[in-house]
């Protein structure tokens, strides 16, 4: 099967600065226009049958892309299996709900606080547990996710199982009101946050933390021997991922105006992890694509509402069997020098030539 990821990377590498900027601007513009796609006959196949299309774009689609990008830092970049990512989402959402209903802080002021709390939780969870390996870490994070949810259910002062209603919505920015009649404004907000996260991840990937995470992911022991402070970078990865989850939680709470423990169950963690792996771990575009498909698909096929989760499960199994590395897998080699790239090109050309030659020979032989 063709590797779209490599093809895309080749085109991107070949383009000059102007072409790249133009492409990025067009792509961002297209993304911002998405809420209106439902109104045109050419694109109205995107409409979701039962829930409002514009609202679906904010939650689940936008939120899941945001969270999948955050989880991708933990799972895709540094190879730590986190099955309790929803905990950070919940911490962000509850921070927004509690501060929003008890203080006069508005959503923009709560956003950094929510991210801070999520980061703090990430550090507190990470310090003792990041010494564990692989599946032990997975089960502890899973446990953490459940602990946060059950704590929320069993604490009457934050609403217990009923949750908190009446979370204030964000104040107007540049004349754009954020309320229930304007899901498109929320969507733009989420797109801006997604772009910020993509920018952050891309910058981090080519700098020291990114290289440290890559080393940890490939081989922890070797990374340790090469002098990478493993625990520190793991905690950084964990808490940056947590901060993104927390930010998503704050926006979720103020968009839905309501938080309740059942929104933060284990299935959400599994779904976000599925987005990351389904799309292609470690590759931003793969993760965005995977999250878009997996969050949008169940809403789009709501007309078979009873069987949609069933179809979703089947789709996961079938897709993973066809493309085990995900839809858009990461590039095999991350950093190539110019000489290496030239050598690779030459090798590929030689390989293709020899393939052609052997095919020709076969044809002649069959004649």
């Amino acid at each position: 099967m063709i590797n779209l990821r490599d093809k895309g990377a080749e085109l991107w590498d070949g383009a000059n600065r102007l072409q790249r900027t133009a492409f990025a601007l067009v792509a961002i513009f297209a993304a911002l226009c998405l809420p209106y796609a439902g109104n045109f006959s050419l694109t109205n196949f995107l409409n979701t049958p039962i829930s409002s299309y514009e609202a679906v774009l904010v939650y689940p689609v936008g939120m899941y892309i945001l969270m999948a990008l955050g989880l991708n830092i933990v799972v895709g970049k540094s190879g730590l299996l986190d099955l309790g990512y929803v905990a950070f989402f919940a911490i962000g959402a509850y921070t927004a709900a509690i501060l929003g209903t008890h203080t006069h802080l508005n959503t923009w002021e709560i956003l950094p606080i929510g991210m801070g709390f999520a980061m703090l939780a990430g550090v507190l969870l990470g310090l003792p547990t990041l010494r564990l390996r692989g599946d032990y870490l997975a089960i502890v994070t899973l446990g953490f996710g459940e602990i946060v949810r059950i704590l929320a259910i069993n604490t009457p002062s934050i609403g217990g199982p009923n949750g908190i209603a009446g979370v204030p919505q964000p104040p107007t920015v540049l004349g754009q009101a954020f309320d229930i009649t304007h899901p498109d404004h929320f969507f733009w907000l989420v797109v801006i946050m997604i772009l910020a996260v993509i920018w952050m991840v891309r910058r981090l990937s080519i700098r020291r933390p990114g290289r440290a995470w890559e080393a940890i992911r490939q081989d922890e022991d070797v990374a340790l021997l090469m002098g990478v402070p493993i625990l520190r970078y793991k905690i950084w990865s964990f808490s940056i991922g947590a901060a993104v989850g927390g930010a998503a939680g704050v926006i979720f709470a103020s968009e839905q105006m309501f938080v309740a423990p059942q929104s933060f169950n284990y299935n959400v963690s599994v779904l976000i992890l599925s987005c990351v792996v389904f799309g292609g771990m470690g590759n931003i575009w793969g993760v965005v694509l995977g999250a878009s498909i997996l969050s949008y698909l169940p809403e789009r096929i709501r007309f078979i509402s009873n069987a949609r989760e069933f179809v979703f499960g089947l789709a996961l199994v079938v897709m993973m069997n066809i493309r085990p590395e995900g839809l858009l897998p990461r590039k095999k080699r991350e950093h190539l020098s110019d000489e290496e790239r030239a050598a690779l090109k030459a090798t590929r050309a030689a390989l293709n030539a020899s393939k052609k030659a052997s095919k020709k020979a076969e044809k002649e032989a069959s004649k």
Partner: protein
Amino acid sequence: MNFSVVGSQFFPLLINGLALGFIYVLVSVGYTMVYGVLRLINFANSEIFMLGTFATAIVSTSVFKFNQNSQPSHGMKLVIVLLCCLLASMATSGVVAVFVELIAYRRLRTKGANRLGSLISAIGTSITLSEGVRILTHSIPVASPRVLSKFYVFKIHGVGLRIDQLLTIASGLLLFIAVDRFVTKTRMGKAIRAVSMSEENSKLMGINLNRVISLTFLIGGLVTGAAAFMYMTVYEQTVFNVGFNIGLAAFTAAVLGGIGNLRGAFYGGLALGLAEEYFSALLGSQWKEITVFVVLVLVLLVKPNGLFGEAVQQTRV
């Protein structure tokens, strides 16, 4: 905190905890065996358990015509009914486990995919199975009629051991010993242990890898099916997502004992069953799940490889 309850109820809680613990032991054997061989969390194991519980319910209602009003049976008939339910449950779970491996894991394994890919495939299988059953049963819990009348085998100072609990504890212990003997003493068991040590080397030694992996899934499925039968005799009700909590607890038990280690699963399962009973008596049952995870985190902090992780290299199944 209600210490007096724990004091006065010490022995009843012990018995309940042991019965629950043996169900956990058997389910976590399913997790730990597969993990030992493939280094893969078999997320579909909870659904394998769920299908076992449904097999038990279906056999007792449609084959033996028990219903909610019928009297519990006794004598020879009781033994036959229970055995048939047990066999049906084990067979269903075993066959499903083998098919899950064939459909969801084998292709990915032979392609040499990374472990997370297999994990997502496993999660997909789990969703498909539980959703399939949910659609078939319209999300309605299925009650299993009472086949075994629940009398006390003995009662000393108000502390009684019910027959279903005795059955669970005794057959759980027997089955675990059987699996343990199989893995440590027989030729096929040796092959399983060899594969868990090194896939490559065991292939070079002429071991049929696919067969051994299928066998591992079969044994894991059979044992999980037996656990499903015991669950049904004790709790008498099942629903499409019954496997979720049991599976989570059993997997936690496997990790607690040191995952991949068969005997670790035994101690882990018992410890977890007892911990759940005592802690829910102490703190109230709403905190039950939390205490499970808190115990797990505390154990892993002191021993990062689980209680019996040290011996993992030698005694991997």
